[in-house]
């Protein structure tokens, strides 16, 4: 059995940052990065717009914190946010020292751009391929550390838990089909989000909530799973992301009449140039909700893949588009046969990000001993009910590093592997063989179950939700989980069996879908990205609290609440595009 001090599940931005952090705590600690894809394939690669950290004069940490907290509709833990904005600049500079090719000012300083929901310009960017450059810089830097061992294309199927602490994982080596236990003193989940639970998403095929489901099954609660972010500008059909930076550089959102409809939804008055925290630079939840209201009014356009509106960049000119948004132009030309220099881009809201995730504290530690989580897979929480664009790339650095350090400290305590671990690993191997590899006669095709799950999630747990629809989804997901027992597996081979991994991913997604629906049903208020038509008001009396959902075998999941940590910013009104009402005395 291979054995390591710290084991990471997932090799994206958070995972690689954590791996480096462990090595820097103690180069003698052995680190394993276990990832179902080669690290540079991880979905961090698709992030476009930028990464926020206060760096310029005239900006302040408090303003970044306030933007984040108000953007999150006061669901963020303010101690976590304060720590986050405080450590953000250091992490970003560290990445600069590791070679990330940040866009620059003429004098050689790092350049920043405006971004949705941010009152000041503080979003660092590498043109519009920020995530790509960050991931490659992290990956290439990680190659320098000898203590980091990689398990590329190993698919984790289970956490090994004994004596109340996690002690490793069971994983399938895709190349050979070997099912292998790998033990470790600390395990960090960095598996990203779960956009593929929904049909239209900017997320890659690999984003199936693996880590969330692994933790959930091990008894660790998931937090704030009802908060699913829709990005207002994805391409119809493919869901390809058209970055928020396109609006930050001055793009307009137009309805079918060519009207900047956001002005009708309390997001400010249209100006020719972008205004921070206003109109197209409002937060993502509000923009996606405005789209739905336009749809209700019949003012959207109709295409073969459903309703859409237009993103207009034509007035920016070729030069700005080519220097600041080259990838947007490339994507439009390649995938839509549209040139944004002269044509309007069709866009619609698409599922983009999971505010919720594995419940952790500000060190990235979960309630289960030795288990940590970071990045989109985790919920610290700094994103609250709605994440601001460009906070997530920074989050994976700040909390990736913190989780890495905490996991390293934990590993240094040196507890031996429990005797029962090997038996547990053997059980898992038998389970995989029984349920998938040796199973025949299944009747439920994977794609069928997945499609049904995605459509019920879009219908019931989308931008607007109701109790009735959520109850329908609750029953449907339970039914799908039951039917999954009869999943049809044609491929019983060992070598690179992607039908097996697709089935396992579907089982993860069904668990995550269950958690999302359960939390959404229990939260009878509207806040940030969670909008209940039957409960349209925010309810700070009842719900200024995080949902914690726990898995119960053979029963409905249990939902509990944990109060939000408020330090300096009492809950207030979210104001965009106009002056705020004076704060109440007190």
């Amino acid at each position, binding site marked *: 059995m291979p054995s390591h001090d710290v084991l990471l599940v997932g090799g994206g931005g958070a995972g690689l940052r954590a791996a480096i952090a462990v090595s820097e705590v103690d180069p003698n600690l052995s680190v394993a990065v276990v990832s179902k894809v080669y690290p540079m394939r991880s979905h961090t690669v698709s992030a476009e717009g930028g990464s926020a950290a206060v760096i310029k004069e005239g900006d302040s940490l408090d303003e970044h914190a306030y933007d984040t907290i108000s953007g999150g509709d006061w669901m963020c833990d303010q101690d976590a946010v304060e720590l986050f904005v405080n450590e953000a600049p250091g992490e970003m500079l560290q990445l600069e020292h590791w070679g990330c090719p940040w866009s620059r000012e003429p004098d050689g300083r790092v350049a920043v751009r405006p971004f949705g929901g941010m009152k000041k310009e503080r979003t660092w960017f590498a043109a519009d391929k920020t995530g790509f450059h960050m991931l490659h810089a992290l990956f290439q830097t990680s190659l320098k550390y000898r203590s980091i061992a990689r398990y590329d294309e190993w698919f984790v199927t289970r956490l090994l838990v004994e004596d109340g602490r996690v002690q490793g994982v069971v994983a399938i080596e895709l*190349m*050979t*089909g*070997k099912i292998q236990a790998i033990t470790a003193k600390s395990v960090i989940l960095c598996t990203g989000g779960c956009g593929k639970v929904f049909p239209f998403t900017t997320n890659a095929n690999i984003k199936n909530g693996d880590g969330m489901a692994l933790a959930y099954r091990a008894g660790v609660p998931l937090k704030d799973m009802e908060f699913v972010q829709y990005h207002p500008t994805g391409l119809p059909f493919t869901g390809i992301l058209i970055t928020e930076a396109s609006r930050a550089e001055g793009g307009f959102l137009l309805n079918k009449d060519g009207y900047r409809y956001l002005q009708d939804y309390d997001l400010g008055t249209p100006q020719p140039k972008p205004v921070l925290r206003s109109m197209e630079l409002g937060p993502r939840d509000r923009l996606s909700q405005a789209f739905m209201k336009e749809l209700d009014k019949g003012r959207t356009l109709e295409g073969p893949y459903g309703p859409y509106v237009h993103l207009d960049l034509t007035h920016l000119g070729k030069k700005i588009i080519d220097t600041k948004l080259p990838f947007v132009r490339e994507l439009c030309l390649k995938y839509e046969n549209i040139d944004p220099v002269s044509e309007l881009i069709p866009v619609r809201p698409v599922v983009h990000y999971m505010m919720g995730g594995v419940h952790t504290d500000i060190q990235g530690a979960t309630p289960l001993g030795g288990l940590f989580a970071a990045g989109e897979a985790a919920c610290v929480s700094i994103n609250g009910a709605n994440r601001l664009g460009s906070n997530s790339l920074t989050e994976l650095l700040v909390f990736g590093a913190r989780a890495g350090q905490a996991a390293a400290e934990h590993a240094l305590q040196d507890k031996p592997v429990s005797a029962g671990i090997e038996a547990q690993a053997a059980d898992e191997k038998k389970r995989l063989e029984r349920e998938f590899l040796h199973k025949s006669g299944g009747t439920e095709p994977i794609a069928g179950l997945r499609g049904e799950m995605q459509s019920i999630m879009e219908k019931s747990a989308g931008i607007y939700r109701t109790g009735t629809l959520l109850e329908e989804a609750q029953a449907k997901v339970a039914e799908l989980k039951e039917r999954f027992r009869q999943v049809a597996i044609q491929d019983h081979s*060992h*070598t690179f069996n992607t039908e097996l991994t697709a089935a396992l991913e579907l089982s993860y997604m069904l668990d995550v879908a269950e958690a999302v629906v359960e939390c959404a049903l229990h939260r009878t208020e509207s806040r940030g990205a969670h909008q209940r038509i039957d409960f349209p008001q925010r309810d700070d009396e009842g719900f200024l609290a995080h949902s914690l959902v726990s898995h119960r075998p053979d029963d409905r999941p249990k939902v509990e609440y944990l109060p939000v940590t408020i330090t300096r910013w009492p809950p207030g009104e979210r104001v965009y595009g106009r002056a705020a009402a004076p704060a109440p005395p007190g």
Partner: protein
Amino acid sequence: MKPPVAYRQYHPKWHRTRVSTFWWSRKWSYLKFMLRELSSVFVAFYVVILLLQLHALRGGPDAYQGFQDWLRNPLLVILNGISFLFVLFHAVTWFNLTPKAMAVRLRGKRLPDVLVAAPNYVAWLAVSALVVFLLTRQG
């Protein structure tokens, strides 16, 4: 032909596709690659000629005359002609490669490839003209 290797559980059995003998005929760039590889034979041939020439030069005027007569052999003329074509081919390859090897920038903007390659050709023409001038003057 070797019998196929049997699969053993958990041991990958990779397939290595055999490169077809005429793979280079598929594409002009591949064909050029093969021609450049092939040119080494003719370059070697030319080196031998050069060595023989030196040897003849050392042997005095008669030996050198004999060497020159030998060069008139049609086979040698053809071989030398081919060598010359290959050398030309290499020259053009190198000239066109210059803009790749040297990213010349003027006021922050990269010069177009044509502008970097062109001086090579100009210099080539100038040198050739000089050689022609020298040869015709003596003749």
